């Protein structure tokens, strides 16, 4: 696969383990992955890097996932950027909150690598 057509996914999670696992899985599936440890870092990075998909955790220091989604959606360029929530809970309330905030979809932790890849393919090709 040529690097120029590689889709770039940003994984936002304060857990290094989780970031490592998401990165590893997606890189293995041919995606380019950038990492951010919280919403604030993600916002900063997105200002300079174009990404095709954001996968964000909900609980994070500095800026949590829901805030990140709202902030991104408020930026015209990112109105239709796919943003997936990576949640530990299958909590409907949280999912509904995420949807209201503008999340594209969700992945439940712990994720199955194949499942993650198929979800990512579904939202960013």
């Amino acid at each position: 696969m040529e690097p120029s057509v590689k889709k770039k996914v940003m994984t936002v999670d304060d857990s290094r383990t989780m970031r490592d696992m998401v990165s590893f899985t997606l890189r293995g599936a041919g995606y380019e992955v950038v990492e951010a440890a919280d919403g604030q870092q993600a916002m900063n990075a997105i200002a300079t890097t174009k990404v095709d998909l954001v996968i964000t955790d909900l609980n994070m220091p500095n800026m949590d996932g829901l805030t990140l989604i709202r902030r991104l959606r408020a930026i015209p360029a990112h109105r239709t950027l796919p943003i997936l929530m990576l949640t530990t809970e299958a909590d409907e309330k949280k999912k509904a909150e995420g949807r209201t905030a503008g999340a594209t979809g969700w992945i439940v932790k712990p994720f199955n690598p194949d499942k993650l890849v198929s979800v990512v393919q579904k939202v960013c090709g």
Partner: protein
Amino acid sequence: MDDLSRFKQTYFDESAELLAVAEAGLLRLAPGEIDMDEVNAIFRAVHSIKGGGGAFGFAGLVAFAHEFETVMDGVRNAEIPITTGLVDTLIRANDVLARMLSHAADGTEAPEGTTDDTVAALRRFLGKAEAVPGQPEPAPEPAATLHPDDEDDEAGIFGDALAAIQAARDDQGPSATPAADAVPDGKIRWTVVFRPKAELLLSGNEPTYMLRALRRLGEAEIVCHLDRLPSLRDLDAELLHLSWTVTLLAGPEVDRARIDDVFEFVADDCDIRISAEAPPPAVIPAIPPGAGPPALQNAAPAPGADLQDKAVPPPPATPAATTSGAAGPGKAADGARRGNGGDHAGPTSHTIRVDLDKIDRLVNMVGEMVITQAMIAEHVRDLPPGQFQELLEGLESLAQHTRELRENVMSIRAQPVSSVFSRMPRLVRECAAATGKEVMLVTSGETTEVDKTVVENLVDPLTHMIRNSIDHGLEGPEERERTGKPRAGTVHLSAAHRSGRIVIEVTDDGRGINRAKVLSKAIEKGLVQPGSSLSDEEIDNLIFLPGFSTADQVSNLSGRGVGMDVVRRNISSLGGRIGVYSAPGEGSRFVLSLPLTLAVLDGMVISVGDERFVLPLTNIVESLRPKPADLHGLVNKCDVMMARGEYVRLVHLHRLFGIPKAIDDATRGLVVLVETEDGSRLGLVVDEVLGQQQVVIKSLEANFRRLDGVAAATILGDGRVALILDVAGLREMSRHGAAPATGIPTTAIPLAAPADRSDQRQRQTV
């Protein structure tokens, strides 16, 4: 999941850090003043441990973390008030979590009932909280996390989405399926009518990808409907006006759930109709029995069967279905692995984890390089001046780069002392509870960096000292009040860099050392002659004597006795020193001075005959040339010298080590006055002091064998091996008589032995 097991170590490392974060936070939690940042940080720490634990299938750990997390969530939402009891329980929970983690790391099962008590204690707080309306139901979640492999059970996890799809399906009128040809054997024809709401794009969902995902499931024919397309003038590019009908010819492994999956996120924003058509029944037995997954029965409905009949949610995908689903991504993975090396690590990868062995090797290599560089420098010194200007300049910058390289490499191993300091709040808390005292711990300089080995070795001494400060130094609250002090005593722990060393101080504002009692105890123990007059400082230092630490005594009376000799031994084994300063009624201050690294030593190079030795700078008090009148011979050939008003035993190194051609008369050579860890002094008789130098420490034991009176070896600039003297060992040797002990290195033999290279060097320079 196997692929992800490689992240286990990261997980355990990270969890250890998170546990420390949680503990530090918990220790700062106090009733009344809630710091939300702190509470959130604790919550997140536990949450992350749980999340990662789930990924590796640590069921027990996850279940316990969940209980812990639920209580933290209650605290976070101000539903559970912070009380001392709560904090204690949470701290205990953190301990249990640590235990669960270490079991997980060892691959062992935690003993039955490990978590029971703590879970019960945690739930008690929850009981109170549950009375509060709006508290989320804590119970059902673990089931989802306990069996990571079950996550395809979307009926549970994605219930809402499926319900919506179900509803859409129930509404389904006569299908728009184009009446088509007969369905081929072994295939199912799915017809999917997909009419998204206009706002679909605003959630970041892209129908193209969903269609693509459908296409991956089989042979697809996609028809786009433009009936909702407005005129160009009314067109809003951000809204979606299209809809599609997809006719999908798929194998039996594609079941309803796989198709529903595609629309997982958009079920609420779409009108989706799905119907299936299979070949006539006679064909079905053609599928080899057992070849298809059990789900097939549900996935391949009877011909013309209307799915509306089935009110039950689609069956969970079977493992077989999951595996076949992986085929697509698997191919992509092959492609990606080739290009993997060039992947950019991303904006946050500012640190990497490195095996400590690698760094040790690096430190070692740099040590070798420093030695080689010094060796070259030594040879160059003998060259005729003025002839090799460029060589000299080159060597000079090489020397500078070597020095910088060494500092940088050493700094890789450097760690902030915060990793040790952060353990102390807990200790203080426990000691305070045990002694019934009120204690405030103040720390400063936590970011001061020092070599990892030094940091690790600080834990025990600091623990001892802080425990002593609280146990013996601080008064009880009532007593403090009587003497006009605040009820809570303060223990101040600080770290700072000072002239190439790290200085750590433990200060308390307690009662100070009770010198009268220390002295009487020392006399009673026979450590001090009755009637001897000691200065305050000397009395304070008595607490470091080994005799002071033997159980029963001093501690609860006055003393600082417990373990202080051990503390001093630990510190001196790190090449450090410890001092105590105390003012009665005002408190005490313990000062540790330690080298920044254990790989390099500040030493004084001395010569004895043809040999060179290195004395650790920390041991050296001064060097002087005695007058004949200062020297006093004793019967057993053990000379003493009067230095600064006290008698000091003289040790002739050449006699001790059997070195020929050395100066025996101290008035013609030099006496280096050294001090051991316990403050006793020795005068080492040497020929000459050659100068101060940083030397790279080489283990003598690892390369040769242990020698009395020798701590380690080093290689000097001229390539010669020099022994680094161990002052305490020399004192021991000199006590056992001045006769040269057997097994003592005689000149070149052991010196040449440590390494072949040094042997060569020696020949070169001789």
